[in-house]
Every structure is written in C-alpha cells, then in structure tokens.
C-alpha cells in the first residue's frame, strides 16, 4: 500500500485545502499525473503523484483542510492486492498480513506504526455514539464539524450533517453545473490576505535567518537584442522569443558553473541541486506573488523555454499550477524590467540560497574605447546566502552571466554541456 501524502508546496506552506480529486478509487495513475487540486494559501495547485499504481481509497474530502504530510489517499502498487480489511483495521492485523505475504518482518514493523500514528493524530474527536450513528447513516464522521465537548463530533452534529447534506443535494441535482462552481468557491474568500500572510512569513524568515550579500553588474545587451531581433524576424508573434527567456537560460547556465548558488540550505547545511529549476517571480493581477518553477532551464532549447514560460505565467495567473512547480524551485529570478526600474535587490525565498534580480534593458551611457556612448544595458543583481557562498563566487556568477549574454546564439542553442567553462565561442 502506497500512501499519497500532501506535499509541501513551498517553504511557507503548513497546510492545504483539498479542492477536488481528479481521480476516483480504482483509477490507474502514472507517475507525474495530476490527481488532486489543493489550495495553498497562495494558489490552487494541481498536485501530481510520484508513484504508478491504482487508487485504493481517498481519505480526504474536498473542502477539508489538512496539514502537510497528511495522507490524502492510499494506492495499491502495480500488482498489489487490495487488503481484505479497511486501513483503519488494527495495525497488528496489517502487520500479520504483510508477514504472511512473505515480506521481511523488519519492513512490516517499520511501515505499520508510522501509518498508525498518523491516522491517530489526524483523527478528529468523534464521540462513540456519534461514530455508531454515523455508521448507521453512512456518514463519514471525520468530516463533520464538531460542536461538542473539546470540539468533538456529537450525535447531534452527525444528524445535523445529514439534514444539511440532503437539502443542497437536491439543488445540485436540479442545476447540472453547480458542482464545479462550488469547488472553486472554497478557495477564493480570503485568498489575498492569506497570500499576504504567507509572503510575510516567508520573507520575515528569510531576513531573520539568511545573511544576505548583494552584488550587481551592468551587462551590455546589444548583441543579445540584435540576435533576438534576427531570430524573431519572420516569426509569427506567438512564436517570438522574448529577452526574458534568454535571460533565464543565461542564468541557468551560469548557475551550473557556480553551483553554490543553486539549491537549498536546510538543517544547517547546503544541498546543491544538479538541475536548475528557476523559480520565476510572477506578480498576480490582484496583488501578491508566486514563483513557480520552470524546470531544467539549462537543458532546454530557447523556443521551448519561451513556450513554457508563457504557459507558466498564464497558469499562475489563473491559479492552476502543479505541485512540482510550487515545491521545486532551486533559485528565484525576479525580472522587473517591464517597470523599467534599474535594479532589484531581492529577498531570498528560503530554503533557496540565491535570488537573481533583473532590471530593465534601457539605453544608458557606456564607455567604450575611451568614449561615452549610448548602449542598451541590463543591471543584473545577485542576492545570495552567505552561509552557502561567498562574494567571490557570486561575482564569478555575474561575470559568467555577462559573458554568456555576449554569445546569444550559442546560448540559445545550448544544453548545459554544450558551453563548457572557458569555451571560446
């Protein structure tokens, strides 16, 4: 039996509200498939599953708020038989069943208490009488609001839930489209204040815990812009590549050369990440901010990056991100170029260790061959965690970024292995 638990969809997430299931018991699921939509305080997120299997039981109902790590559903592994008894049956019985099947005893004892403890901790208080009555009525008492002693679910709560449930059920039957509307309504009411609180918590933690250092570099952008103009010439608007995609790619490749900036600082040590999943800061129209991941930026061709970036921005704004996009970013890139600010000095999103800030690309004075002339320049900044890296390495990263942007064609085509450190292209 595989337990599908609510993943953490960002460092600031402690709990989530299930909005809907995309699967039913008995459905086969594949690794990476979206199986549920969960509302974090920031967004409605499509949650993917990381096992192949068959959905056995859905343990959480739409509308329920559960902590990160709570078991949302159980899956049978491919070829696994459904257990004869419900999972809430005595752990001892489960252990025996596993033993009888010939599994090593150590594994059985390892697994069983864990699920047992979680089940007990997550179970809300339901009076014995209420539980008995709920069984008679076919109500799941764990999803009834309790008004009794110590917040427990009482007989009256069970019976009231049946009355409430039966009334709207008729309404929904009458209006076929009622169901999806009801689901999205769960998420919206105080989304903005919840998001504000989530941002406040993450940013306060960042400034409290992370010793930031800041570096900045002016980068000539004439070659990159020229190349983009040629590249886009003759392409329909929908297929044009914007400088944002090229900049993301440059950051990703530069990061592979200075890996101390890409990864997570957790439990007193830095864990570098081999892949670069760029968290792209996206401001929402109603206020607030998301930084979902664009995966494996360093290895993707520029056209693909552009498509994925456009898609990511669109989905972030309508609130349909995937769980891996919320939890995977290894660094954040914030681009305030559209507002034509000159530079942005960011606050790192923990447990990441760096944030790259990109200002507007504008015509500014530049000295070349002893003469002042106007050139399109970009001010790139780095805010980095001094626990994971030092200013010297940070400076190397910005220098790499600058050099990569002087060779846009190679950059655009490159996967991470194509441009080697010191490669003269």
């Amino acid at each position, binding site marked *: 039996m595989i337990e599908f638990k609510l993943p953490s969809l960002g460092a600031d997430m402690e709990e989530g509200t299930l909005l809907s299931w995309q699967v039913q018991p008995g459905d086969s699921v594949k690794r990476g498939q979206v199986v549920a939509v969960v509302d974090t305080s920031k967004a409605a997120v499509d949650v993917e599953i990381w096992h192949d299997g068959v959905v056995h039981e859905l343990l959480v109902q739409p509308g329920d708020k559960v902590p990160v790590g709570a078991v949302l559903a159980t899956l049978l592994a491919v070829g696994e038989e459904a257990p004869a008894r419900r999972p809430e049956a005595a752990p001892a019985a489960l252990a025996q069943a596993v033993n009888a099947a010939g599994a090593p005893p150590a594994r059985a004892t390892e697994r069983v208490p864990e699920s047992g403890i979680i089940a007990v901790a997550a179970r809300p208080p339901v*009076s*014995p*009488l209420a*539980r*008995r009555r709920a069984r008679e009525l076919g109500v799941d008492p764990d999803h009834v609001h309790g008004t*009794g*002693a110590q917040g427990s679910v*009482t*007989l*009256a709560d069970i019976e009231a839930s049946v009355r409430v449930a039966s009334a709207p059920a008729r309404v929904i039957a009458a209006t076929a489209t009622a169901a999806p509307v009801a689901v999205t309504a769960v998420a919206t009411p105080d989304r903005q204040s919840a998001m504000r609180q989530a941002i406040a918590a993450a940013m306060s933690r960042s400034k409290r815990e992370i010793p930031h250092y800041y570096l900045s570099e002016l980068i000539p952008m004439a070659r990159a812009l020229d190349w983009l103009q040629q590249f886009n010439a003759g392409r329909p608007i929908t297929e044009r590549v914007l400088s944002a995609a090229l900049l993301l790619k440059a950051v990703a490749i530069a990061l592979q050369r200075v890996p101390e900036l890409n990864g997570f600082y957790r439990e007193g040590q830095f864990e570098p990440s081999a892949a670069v999943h760029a968290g792209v800061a996206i401001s929402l129209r109603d206020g607030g901010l998301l930084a979902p991941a664009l995966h494996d930026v360093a290895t993707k061709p520029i056209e693909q990056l552009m498509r994925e970036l456009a898609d990511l921005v669109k989905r972030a704004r309508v609130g349909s991100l995937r769980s891996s996009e919320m939890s995977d970013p290894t660094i954040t890139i914030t681009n305030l170029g559209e507002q034509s600010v000159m530079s942005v000095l960011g606050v790192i999103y923990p447990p990441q260790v760096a944030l790259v800030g990109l200002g507007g690309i504008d015509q500014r004075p530049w000295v070349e061959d002893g003469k002042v002339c106007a050139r399109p320049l970009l001010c790139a900044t780095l805010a980095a965690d001094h626990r994971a890296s030092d200013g010297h390495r940070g400076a190397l990263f910005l220098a790499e970024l600058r050099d990569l942007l002087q060779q846009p064609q190679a950059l655009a085509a490159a996967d991470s292995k194509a441009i080697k450190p010191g490669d003269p292209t």
Partner: protein
Amino acid sequence: MTTRHLTYREAMHEALREALQADPRVFLMGEDVGRYGGTYAVSKGLLDEFGPERIRDTPLSELGFVGAGIGAALGGMRPIVEVMTVNFSLLALDPIVNTAAMLHHMSGGQFSVPIVIRMATGAGRQVAAQHSNSFEGWYAHVPGLRVLAPATVADARGMLALALTDPDPVLIFEHVQLYNTEGEPSDEEASAIDIYSARVRRTGTDVSLITYGGCLPKALAAADELAAQGIAAEVIDLRVLRPLDDATVLASVRKCHRAVVIDEGWRSGSLAAELMARISEQSFFDLDAPLARVCSEEVPIPYAYHLEQAALPQVSKIVAAVKALL
C-alpha cells in the same frame, strides 16, 4: 406507614425501634448509643424503652465491639452495631473485612454473619480531616459485604429492616449532613424500598448525574439549576454501593448519552472511578461525550469552613462539569 413529616434522624430512630420491637434477637451496641442517646441522637430514648441488655454502651474499642457483634451474629443474634463514624471503623477493618465478609466463604458455607453495622460518614461539619472521611467506597470494594447508603428519609426508614433480613453482613452509611433533612415518605415509597437497586430520583434526557448519600441533595439542586438553563439532567441515586445496580445506571446513560458521577470520596481509586469504568465497559458506544466526575479534592478535608467547602463536591462544580460536556 402513612404519609407524614419526618426527619432522616427520626426515620432512623423509628426504624431501630421497630426492629427492636419486631425481633427479640435484635440489639443495638456502640459508643454512646445508650445513656447519651447516640452521637447523632438517633437512639435517644431507646435505652429507657428496651433496657441495657438490648441498648448496650461499649468502651472506645471498635476492634473489640465489632468483633463481639460478629460473635453474637454467629451465635444466632441479630446485632446492630453502631460505629460512631467511618473514620473510627478503620480500627475495625480486620473483623469487618477478614472475618464478617469472609467467614461464609472460609467455612464452606457453614457460617453466616447476619450483622448490621451502621456508620456516619462524610464531611461538611467542620470537624477536621480525621473526622471527615468518606470511606464507604473502600467497603464497597470488598466481596461478601452489602453496602447501603440511604440518602432519603424513606430509605432511612425502610432499609434497616431489610438489612436485618440479610443473612450476610450489611453496612449502612448515614451521611452526617442528611440527619436534619426532612421528607414525607408515602406508603408507595415505603413499599418500593429494597436493598439491591438504584433509583431514578429525577428524570431527564441530557445528562445522567450518578450519585449517592450526602451528594444526592447537591445533585438534585444542580439539576434544578441546569433545568433553569434548559438542560434536563437525570439524577440516579445508587442507594446500594455493593453490589452496584449496573442496569439502572446503564439504562440512564443509554438514554442521556452523557454522565457525571458525583462522589464525596477522593477520585483516585474511588467508587466514581468504578462507575466510570463500568459505563465505559458496557455503554461505550452510547456515549456522546467523555465521562466526567465531581469528587473531593485530594487533600485531607480542611477544618476552615471556606476551605472545607472548596474541597467538597458542590452544586456549582456539578453544573460546571455538566456544561463542559455539552
């Protein structure tokens, strides 16, 4: 018996007098029961009526005179032994527990011990820790004893005669705060008296208040207060602390789905604990809230009035315990 006004003290007195009149084998023995008329004036005038052979003042030796009572019972008499209070009965624990309660078993059924032992119990009279205990729960622990706790005038009037018909030892606990309570026991009530069942003293549907003895008036007062707030409490008077009448208790719990046990004993290892255990064992799936109890604070009962009152179960504590369950 017709309907008439009586105090609990008068009811006990009448019961004693009736028993002495009814059976020449019956005699009363204890400290100050004769010339003084009983510490709580229950036996006043009986010495004059029945003489010193049947109303016997004893030395201050509970071990001695309880033992003598057991011997008399074995010899064919029907002794009523008054131990002034339960506090002093600890000196007679050995004859009560090891002899009276066990002799029938130890003799393979050859000997019975038809003794009735009366004791005052409980606190609330500012007589300090050593005179304020409620140890009836200890005796309710012992197989071989029947333990009665009359809480009403009618029970005080009617239980003694029935206790005397029991071939085995019977202990009667009279709470000191009850002697001045008044009642008008009806014929109907009198004819319904037994020494094996609990009684529903007030019917209700929201919570069972399970109590006995000196706490019964407090539970009834709490039920009044709760009724004024729209909460219908049912009050169960256990009456018999051993053997417990599970059926009446469980029927009430199965109706109300919530229960508070009120017991003047200390909570640890108490009769209240036993009742809660039985309810959990036999009616767990009827409960809609955790079980609760109101017991005495686990301290020697204080002498100072306000501290003594604070240490004991009170109406306000019962009301609070009920409201925490709703």
